[in-house]
């Protein structure tokens, strides 16, 4: 029994999540990155609810709550704080300019579709349409980390990557076992905090959060 609404909603949410990811590639202001990330997280938490409702898995509501707390509330809060501290810094010259990175992101999404063909074919889940989009989101996250010079942006890229994986897990399996999920959240939180600490340390020692200047250790 496939509920077409479920399929549509889930695909829509995944598309929206991907869109916010792409938005990130387009913007240059650190503040707008946080906005994009936050919006994406909101969409994903809604997706949790959708899957929880249609998939009849009440556990997911709890997870969604946790997700909201973490990624919609806590992380953006810290990110904003950080962004205000480093407000002067912008992504001036990314390694790849905006048009090229957008085109590359498009290619990545197409690649994701191609790669996920057997996966989609395998599944009879109503949510399967969103799977390639999730992988696309993962690739976009990678692309952000790869092409942007500010440590701050890289953290956001990493968070988007994580979001992509979350979407993948959610759409593919209706959520992974709770114990793992909890561990993953803990890790995500810890990882975020650790990265945040390092960004401050970076700023403290290098007086900038430009990753570009981290080139003393070589060979």
């Amino acid at each position, binding site marked *: 029994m496939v509920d077409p609404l479920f399929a549509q909603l889930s695909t829509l949410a995944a598309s929206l999540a991907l869109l916010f990811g792409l938005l990130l590639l387009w913007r240059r202001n650190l503040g707008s990155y946080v906005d994009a990330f936050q919006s994406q997280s909101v969409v994903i938490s809604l997706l949790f609810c959708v899957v929880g409702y249609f998939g009849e898995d009440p556990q997911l509501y709890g997870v969604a709550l946790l997700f909201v707390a973490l990624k919609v509330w806590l992380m953006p809060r810290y990110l904003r704080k950080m962004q205000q501290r480093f407000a002067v810094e912008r992504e001036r010259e990314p390694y790849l300019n905006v048009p090229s990175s957008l085109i590359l992101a498009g290619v990545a999404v197409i690649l994701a579709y191609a*790669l996920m063909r*057997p*996966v989609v074919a*395998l*599944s*009879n*889940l109503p949510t399967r349409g969103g799977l390639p989009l999730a*992988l696309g989101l*993962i690739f976009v996250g*990678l692309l952000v*980390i790869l092409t942007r010079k500010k*440590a701050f942006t*890289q953290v956001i890229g*990493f968070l988007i*990557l*994580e979001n*992509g*994986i979350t979407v*993948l*897990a959610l759409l*593919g*399996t209706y959520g*992974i*076992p709770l*114990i*793992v999920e909890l*561990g*993953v959240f*803990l*890790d995500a939180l*810890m*990882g975020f905090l*650790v*990265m945040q*600490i*390092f960004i401050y*340390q*970076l700023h*403290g*020692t*290098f007086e900038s959060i430009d*990753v570009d200047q*981290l080139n*003393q*250790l070589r*060979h």
Partner: protein
Amino acid sequence: MTFLFLLLPPLIAALLAGLVRPTRAWVARANALLSLIPLGAALVFAAQAVAGQPAATFGPGELLRADSLSALLLLCVTGVAVLALFLGPNLGPDSHYDAEQLRRYQIFVNLFIGAMLLAVSANNVGVMWVAIEATTLSSALIIPLSLNKASVEASWKYILIGSTGIALAFAGTVLAYFDFVSLVGPIANALNWPVLLGNAHALHPEVIRLAFIFLLVGYGTKAGLAPMHTWLPDAHAEAPAPLSALMSGVLLAVAIYAVLRWKAVVDALLGPAFTNNLLIGLGLLSMVIAAFSLVIQRNYKRMLAYSSIEHTGLICLGLGLGPAGIFAALLLLICHSAAKSMLFLLAGGILQRYQSTSIASVSGLLKAMPWTGGLFATALLALLGLPPFGMFVAELALLKAGFAQDAPWLMAAVLLLLSVAFVSLVRHLNQLLYGPVPAGVAVGESFSWRSALFCLNLGGLTVLGLTLPAPLMILLNQIVGIVTK
């Protein structure tokens, strides 16, 4: 129950370090002593495995499980942990860190060890992933124990590359789980390794191939497999010596362990050719990069780090060479853990005396620090695969596996690369050992219990080289049996 003895002591030690303020010397001593308990637990697991008892499990949904493979890794981790904690910065005569740094070190190094222990004793591959991710976080925090540009740079690279890589591994885990859920249906404890392995034949090959790529790239990043290895020389060189020892000695092994677990699952479905080719390819690439990076190397800690990459490559290559190769790889893993951790610990002492990590500015080591120098030289020669140490046997075992698999060209390449590394390392070693002691460096060193501990370690390596003890043989053969089922 034994699992509690395994996992609780590091947590207790971390708590202790966090709670006792101001820091007291006895905390470090207690910590060192506490580290013996997990070692005992690991020995118990190993003994149980050797005795042929079924793997012990623990916790809800058999969260923890210790089969032969886990037992072996537990032994490595706890053994190196004992070395690192006994020879850590708090217990030495030399502590040049302040109290706050020491506390931070104490807390996170224990969490790090705890995470590694959890990773290799977790039954659920998701939990394993969580634990491995935790190792990155806990170790990253103490790499820049003393803040400077280099250590901050190294740790940022470490955490970003490590986290990204490990996130990919999670994507792989999710994909595999998705595959499982789609084809086998939702089973309780589906992510438990024996369940995965048992149902592997029902999985979808194409999906599992994609999943394995993610897993290999992900865990390979942690294992220092080229070309994902780039964080490794930086992090290992900048970390405090005991942490380098733990990272190089066992963290790599833990990551390889994760790959091996997944390889077993994938092989059960696809046959070994797919994973073998990938492992051999990446292993060989790692060896090429590491061997040639060793030729011109000016920093001895980085030198050791590159040698770790080389060994990771060698081990992965071994894993791709069938049962005999897995046997050799495991042996390599053990010997590498023992030798490399010792080398990093000794390198810490050298750094302290000479105040430089540059090979050019360290000379006359045998004069300035006869014990450290002698032990360092011996350990390095052991690492290079010279008799009578275990690595000689391990490398020959690998060779044997390769030739038995009819891969003579591969073996020729391996041998040549090993020789390049061999010559380079001997050259660098001689530069360190001989020559005049630079002005301003104190001369002389007396025998201490620390040196005795190292000698013990070397003794173990020698035993491995002369005769593999029967229990170890049983254990290794059991492991080979498990992962090639």
